[in-house]
């Protein structure tokens, strides 16, 4: 299990270094505050998990937000009933999301293509509606599930870890409260572990089988290969990743709301994965970071910032530019997102990873003149293997 080629190891080490030094290299970009970096890391986990399903098998699920929601709710309930420690919370979040994914996957995977997408969408919308209506005793409806000071917390009481401070209890790890940078580093470690797992899955025979299903399921079946258990396993694994991400969201901010389960959230997840590069190891992470970055930075830009940015232009032109640009930032950053997305799908179906690769290849070719053997295709979808 821990056998590692040198290339894989280098990759993991570089990745870990990048993630752990986030506070340093993000500060010139104006995004180095813990709350935002936690989001970066958590959504990267979410996207990595989704990529194991969509990237490897080609099954496009539109219901992954439901697993994130289940993870969040489970974690908050664990905070309420068991302990403020994050370990049981994450454990149960992953388990429950996995069971939920097993249930949904068992039915949804009987169909493929767009029918699979619609089935997952229907299941997710159903859970979303139920979370808002009938399941209010469990989910607390529109208010969202919150922790309270006088929750039972069986384990904490048993261990005599009663509340000491006067404020709201905070999620902790073995007695150490997680706030700010502590929370970020915990999430970062989890992300590195997740990246490792996904690396292993990509390199394993299991990952190979999933890729075979993607390229031609019928042929796989003709070779005497029962594809269903493999698909279900991939679905459950990616559901568990989503549950883990949901649990971490609850750890960094102990509240769970049903709006996390809405289908547009699943849509955002798909956007992240596509933007970075489907089926690549690093792509989903990059996509998640970019989208969360734009969400926070672009939506914070207002007309004052724009005015000072276009200050060098003559007055009339400055006004025109500010009026045009203000449609794309602030409240309207989704417009930028949508445009970016359309452009990516049209021109770069392999996402940014493929784009970078093409760019590198072109640069190399111009550097080496024309002695490069033609037709040496390294598709973005099979890089890092």
């Amino acid at each position, binding site marked *: 299990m821990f056998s590692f080629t040198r290339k894989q190891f280098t990759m993991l080490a570089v990745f870990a270094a990048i993630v752990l030094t986030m506070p340093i290299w993000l500060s010139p970009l104006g995004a180095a505050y813990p709350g935002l970096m936690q989001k970066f890391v958590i959504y990267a986990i979410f996207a990595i998990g989704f990529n194991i399903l969509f990237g490897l098998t*080609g099954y*496009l699920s539109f219901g992954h937000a439901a697993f994130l929601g289940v993870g969040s709710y489970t974690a908050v309930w664990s905070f309420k009933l068991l302990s403020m420690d994050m370990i049981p919370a994450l454990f149960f979040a992953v388990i429950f999301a996995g069971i939920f994914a097993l249930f949904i996957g068992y*039915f949804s995977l*009987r*169909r*493929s*293509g*767009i*029918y699979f*997408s*619609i*089935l997952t*969408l*229907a*299941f997710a*919308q*159903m859970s979303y*509606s*139920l979370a*808002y*209506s*009938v*399941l209010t005793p469990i989910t607390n409806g529109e208010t969202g599930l919150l922790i309270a000071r006088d929750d039972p917390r069986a384990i904490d009481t048993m261990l005599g870890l009663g509340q000491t401070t006067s404020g709201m209890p905070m999620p902790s790890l073995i007695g150490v409260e997680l706030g700010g940078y502590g929370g970020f580093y915990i999430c970062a470690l989890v992300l590195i572990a997740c990246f490792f797992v996904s690396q292993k899955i990509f390199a394993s025979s299991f990952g190979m089988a999933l890729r075979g299903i993607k390229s031609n399921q019928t042929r796989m079946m003709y070779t005497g290969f029962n594809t269903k258990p493999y698909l279900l396993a991939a679905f459950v694994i990616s559901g568990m990743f989503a549950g883990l991400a949901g649990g971490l969201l609850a750890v960094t901010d102990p509240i769970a709301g049903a709006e996390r389960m809405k*289908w*547009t959230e699943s*849509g955002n997840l*798909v956007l992240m994965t*596509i933007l970075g590069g489907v089926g690549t190891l690093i792509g989903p992470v990059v996509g998640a970071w970019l989208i969360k970055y734009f969400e926070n930075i672009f939506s914070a830009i207002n007309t004052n910032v724009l005015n000072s940015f276009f200050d060098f232009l003559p007055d009339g032109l400055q006004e025109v530019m500010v009026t045009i640009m203000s*449609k794309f930032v602030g*409240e*309207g950053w*989704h*417009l930028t*997102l*949508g*445009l970016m*997305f*359309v452009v990516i*799908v*049209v021109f770069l*179906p392999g996402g940014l990873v493929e784009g970078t690769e093409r760019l590198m290849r072109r640069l190399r070719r111009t550097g080496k003149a024309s002695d490069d053997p033609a037709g040496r295709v390294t598709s973005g979808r099979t890089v890092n293997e």
Partner: protein
Amino acid sequence: MNAFLAQLLNGLDKGGAYALIALGLTLVFGTLGVVNFAHGALFMLGCFCAVVFRFLLTIETVTIDPEILSPWGAPVEVRTPLVQNWLGDWGAFLVDYSVPISVLFAVPVMLVIGIAMERGLIKHFYKRSHAEQILVTFGIAIVLQEVVKSFFGANPMPQPIPSDLRGAADVGAWLGMEANQLTYPMWRLVYLLFSLGVIGAVFAFMRFTTFGMVVRAGMADRETVGVLGIDIDRRFTIVFGLAAVVAGVAGAMYTPLLAPNYHIGMDFLVLSFVVVVVGGMGSLPGAVVAGFLLGILQSFASMNEVTSIFPGIDQIIIYLVAIVILLVRPRGLMGRSGVMES
């Protein structure tokens, strides 16, 4: 019995909207083979056609009339729409009936938008996978939605019903019951009739015109029609425009029932996909039947008698039906076997 009929009527007008949206989706899928996630956004654009039309009609002049004084002695501002200035009573009528008349405005606008969309972007995606089609149309939907949001804001924009149609229709009396036993809002009845009319028109168009015949032939076998020397791509482009028009007019007429905001399309999109799937991918009659069926089913599920037995069933009934249909009979109620089955 009355409660039953009332729920039936309630379901029919919602079913009309579902059927119209699903009809457009199916047209596009059946002809171009494209899974169009932007169809909800087209519905939303139709809604905003009505909003824009009314806005244009009600551009006002403000005159200060020194003769009339308000109770505290200041001159009163008199606001009259320009249209009323020019056309007198007829202008007032125009303003009052802005919603139904906006349908006429929506038709050319939606036709142009639909054709531009197909020529500009969607035509490049015929050969790509369904997943990629979903993704690109989802992207278009976001863009359209955000453009509308940046012009109209995020608040719902209620549109008034024409004053003559505001009351309730005494449906019971028409059916031979006593008066006021079964009443129903007039506008919902109008919407139902309107949707039936549009559906009828689309079917007649497909059935009785040469254009419709060619399109149907193209749906069955695109290559052969092309070989016969017919420019099938152009016809299909127009069909896409037609689907956009159907979604648009459905939206424009729906504005008095549900105040439109920029994400109204997304809310309808998921439902209409479910409708299409239940009816059978690529089957026009299936989409219509399933639309009305699911509308009625939803309204029955929201009856108190039902929700007391199965709490929350009204929220999920449509999805539940879709899941069962997909698992048991994936071709849907009226789909051909082999279409999109695997």
